[in-house]
């Protein structure tokens, strides 16, 4: 599965400044592994020591938060758009 990944500023030093990259994977877990093969070190920034997505990182598949889907097991299909976004505050 070839998908498009939007890369936030703090991760662009891994992608040579690119704000969007192509990657492969049947699900989000495989996608993160694939990103790390092409951009070594990036996985450690997205996932904690136990392999889970870090608390302050949100991952979206076509605009939907993967925590509402199947987290790392969320299936991907050709042409999906993935966004990696730091959490931000607001409200009241």
């Amino acid at each position, binding site marked *: 599965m070839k998908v498009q990944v*939007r890369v*936030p*500023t*703090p991760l662009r*030093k891994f992608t040579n400044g690119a*704000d969007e990259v192509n990657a492969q994977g049947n699900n989000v877990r495989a996608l993160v592994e694939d990103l790390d093969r092409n951009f070594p070190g990036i996985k450690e*920034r997205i996932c904690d020591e136990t392999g889970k997505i*870090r*608390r*302050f*990182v*949100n991952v*979206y598949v076509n*605009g939907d*938060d993967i*925590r*509402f889907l199947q987290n790392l097991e969320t299936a991907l299909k050709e042409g999906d758009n993935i*966004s990696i*976004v*730091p*959490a*931000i*505050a*607001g*409200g*009241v």
Partner: protein
Amino acid sequence: MSFVTGLECRECGQEYPKEPLHVCETCFGPLEIVYDYDRIRKAISREKILSRAKNLWRYRELLPIDGEPQAGLYSGFTPLIRAHRLGAALGVKELYLKDDSVNHPTFSYKDRVVSVAISKAIEFGFDTVSCASTGNLANAVAAHAAKAGLACYVFIPDGLEQGKIIGSAIYGPRTISIKGNYDDVNRLCSEIADKYGWAFVNVNLRPYYAEGAKTHGFEIAEQLGWKLPRHIVVASAGGTILPKLAKAFKEFKRVGLVEDGECKIYAAQATGCAPMIQALKKGTDLISPVKPNTIASSIAIGNPADGYYVLQAVRESGGGGESVTDEEILDAIKLLARTEGIFTEPAGGTEVAVTKKLVQQGKIPRDESIVISITGNGYKTLEVVAETVEKPFSIHASLKSFDELYLQLTQPSPEEALASEG
């Protein structure tokens, strides 16, 4: 003169210079302002604060600006009101309302955070300011940007109350309404903030912005006679104000402005959007995001960025939290209006209703000092209560018409008549 030494990641401790940065490059944790408290302790005193104008900048040593304040010179220092009648209704002895519904100039606690953010945006040399908002923040950013002469874009979810939409538009920003809820707005804005070089008050200026929320706590302590209340109840949405109240109280102790004292902090959420209350009750650190479904639009954030720190601050203080239904929120808005003459929005109704519930449950004792934070104003959200209040009686301009109406209004209802007969 600044007492800020830099920024530091709250998660991994990595240090950063004073720049418009908000997330740690290593772990994505939020960045926090680092102050030199030893120097502040020597520079600040009760007398010095009392000699200054009654606005939020009277605590400027504990705020992250380098030069003179550039915005919000009339913001903050809202009333702390002894609420005898609401206290009696809730059955508590010493109740206060911190009334940010009359904050200058846009009637919510957001005037505090935005005063600091706009001052900082000017210091950094930005010419355009922006925000992701549930309404109140957009109002505050638009107003303060107008006063400062900055260009302004505000992003809101669709379906907001008219008062909040027009309450931004009047100041002349570009308002962009996103098809979706606040969490969708938030996600888009973090991508926009990445791409356009603007000062997004709650994205790249967040560490500075959030510090403004401390002034709500500083003022409470000062207004109580340099003392902390024993209990405080405040609404939680994205999680900015609650941890900053905890920080405010700690800082006042640390720099010697209040004696030791402990304040228990309680989070208030609407049942239709209560991810933090769910986590508090489950005893977990993990916040499962929810899809909001409540009339309390200003706190309808299902994926709270700083939720983890809300849990931490509540637990560390020995406080708690509760959620209330939309019906309880509407009842509480009316209760506050009819006992204290204050008209708040659903977030404020949530704060009052949750206090009532926690007192009834025995979680907040009836004989200790309690502060309820009233974070926003009901005149912005008229439509949520419109159907629940009495309609005007329409009569002709004749005394006879009024006499008839008055008789009708003062006649005992059939139930009352029956009761007096019995």
